[in-house]
């Protein structure tokens, strides 16, 4: 191949300092040309909206015209009880559902990895499948399943003599339903990430642990968990970002109700933009959320990340 010869390093004596930057021609230019479409799309559909959203967050529509109001939308957030309710609800999901889900995912990953389990591929597939289900489709299915009067779940409960549960109509149960739906959807996904990491833990470490007298619990605590650390960090950060942005499930299942029990920041943002036409305020919420996610991400890296 002719290309093999072109890569020959230049003789050292010719490496005299060259005047000016290298010219972007031919081969040097090609990579930039190739990434240009992606960059242009990124700029048009990501950077521009993000920047424009910030501009919007400093404006308010007064009598049909966009008026610059400075930080008004941001200070308004501080006095808005619904924003705090949404923040609180989102935090509850973050503090309750995410740890439960990740613990479950870790358990599943260990089970998937176990030689004792037969037909492992079927189980892995089965638990991962919810992830590829369309968000709206599964939201609708859950709302049908959990319907208080006509839902399958209550029908089953009642057929064994239990009382019907107000899944979506009682504030506490609505939160639990939301948690159940989220867990069903994302546990398998996290388990697969953890499983991938689990398979990279050297077998010898377990052998060494066993030689040192560690049982199953000891091996899990001293080998599996430390080995999973980077994957746990990844799943925690991804779940945090995902949870803070959560929108589809509460929007479809409960519309944020009853009485704002499942109102999340994502749903509140949507309501402000597309129900109340208050784009400036919605943008301010989006930016507050982005800052929050940034801070939480940073904290998680500091706490869980490697100390190197």
């Amino acid at each position, binding site marked *: 191949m002719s290309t093999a010869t072109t890569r020959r390093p230049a003789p050292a004596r010719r490496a005299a300092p060259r005047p000016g930057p290298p010219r972007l021609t031919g081969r040097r230019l090609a990579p930039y040309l190739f990434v240009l479409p992606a960059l242009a799309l990124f700029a048009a559909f990501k950077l*521009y909206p993000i920047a424009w959203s910030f501009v919007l967050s400093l404006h308010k*529509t007064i009598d049909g015209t*966009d008026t610059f109001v400075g930080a008004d939308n941001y200070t308004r957030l501080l006095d808005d009880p619904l924003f705090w309710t949404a923040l609180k609800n989102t935090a509850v999901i973050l503090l309750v559902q995410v740890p439960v889900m990740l613990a479950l995912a870790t358990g599943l990953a260990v089970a998937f990895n176990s030689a004792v389990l037969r037909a492992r591929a079927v189980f892995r597939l089965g638990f991962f499948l919810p992830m590829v289900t369309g968000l709206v489709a599964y939201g609708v299915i859950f709302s049908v399943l959990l319907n208080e009067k006509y839902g399958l779940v209550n029908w089953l409960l009642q057929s064994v003599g239990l009382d019907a549960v107000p899944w979506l*109509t009682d504030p506490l149960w609505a939160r639990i339903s939301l948690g159940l739906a989220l867990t069903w959807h994302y546990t398998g996904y996290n388990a697969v990430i953890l499983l991938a990491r689990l398979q990279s833990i050297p077998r010898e470490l377990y052998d060494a642990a066993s030689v040192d007298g560690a049982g199953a619990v000891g091996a899990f605590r001293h080998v599996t968990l430390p080995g999973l650390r980077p994957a746990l960090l990844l799943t925690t950060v991804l779940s945090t970002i995902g949870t803070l*942005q959560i929108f589809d499930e509460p929007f479809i299942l409960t519309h944020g109700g009853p009485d704002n029990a499942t109102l999340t920041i994502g749903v509140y943002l949507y309501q402000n933009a597309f*129900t*109340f036409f208050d784009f400036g305020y*919605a943008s301010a919420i989006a930016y507050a959320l982005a800052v929050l996610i940034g801070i939480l*991400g940073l904290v998680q890296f500091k706490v869980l990340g490697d100390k190197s």
Partner: protein
Amino acid sequence: MDITRRGVLRAGGALAAGAGLSGLTACSGSGAAGDSGSGAAGSATKGEITVWSWAGPAAEMKALVPAFNAQYPDIKVTVQDIGNPAIWDKITTALAAGGSGLADVLHIGVDYLPGYVEKFPNGLADLSKLGANQYKDAFAQGMWATVAPKGGRVNALPWEANSAGFYYRADVFEQAGVDVKALDTWDDTVEAGKVIKAKTGKYLLGIDKPASQPDAANFFQMLLQLQGAFYFDLDGGITLDSPQAVRAMTLIKQLNDAGLVSDLSGGWNALISSIKAGTNAVVPWPTWFGGIIEETVPQEKGKWGVRLPPTVRRGGSNAATVNSTHLAIAGSSKQQAAAWKFVEFVLTRPENQVKIYKEKGIAPALIKAYEDPVFHAPSEFFSGQKKGEIFLNALEAPSPAYNYSADYARALKVVTDAQTKVLLKGADPAEVLKAAADQLGQQTGRKVVR
């Protein structure tokens, strides 16, 4: 704390991931939609126009296209059923995007019209420039004030005008031995409901208690409008915790505490299921809902009756125009003149409105349409009653103007939350409404009038 370059990059990544969501609002644009509002674009005799509506009305407009084309053969009309409530999001985003992708003709409810007009001043064409003013007196009273609140500019043309109604299962009332005609006030109705519950096991009526849809406040709103009151006064002040509102919410609490309210959580589907299952004795919905009942339970012909609702206070009114819908033309439309011809054809020709009423029971705002015998004929489904005349009487009765304002959606949100607190947690009506009014004031900067 030492922040490494890697740490900063990581945080930046997380921040960008968060900001990804902010892209959601970024398609909102500047709010200055369209360039015209001039109301004269395009030819009046040829072109292609698109119409956005939902379900029944969309089907009816589609059915009118051949007749329209007999007169305007060169105007091609495409009617799209966008679905309700999906249509509101779709119109909002398109208006916010400067009108791009918007249909030429838009079917808009009274609850959304003021918001669109206020937030997107040029989003809708000014129909006065197309000749709308000649129809000023053609519609039911109060309707012109709704479409042209400041006079001069006309934002839309009225289509349906719905009066508060009281559909009931005549057979259930009979079985319980309650004379439905004798119910003068809602207090009487609470007592009747107790008898019906005891004798037949049926609830008096249903409400979407956890407010899974904004429709959940329809009954509350009707009780308010029967008293001539609303969420805002005509100057835009908040009147959410007025004595009338407290009275309406207290009535709902009384009904609920007496076990007379079934839960319609799930919104529309639950409502239709409850009608099929015969859960409730009364469906307190406006004019257009009669058509839905006929469609849903055709086998119950003769078992249903209809009347205007009881009054909230003895001697008060039992007539209220509780909502209306309209056809508007997009300010960004290049075919405004052709679009106007279609709007005019559908809304100002009595024969077309009569056809729509016959097929879907949608009540016209066009007064001349009521000259047709169909409005004065006994209805087989409603036990031989003259349903059309009942609602025509309501439409002709004095009806105050209601100010929906641009903040109606926000008001509805705090009202449905307040109602849920009352229905699910037994909260005090006066207290929750006061809190709701204050919250609305905080959110909108409007004054709470007390």
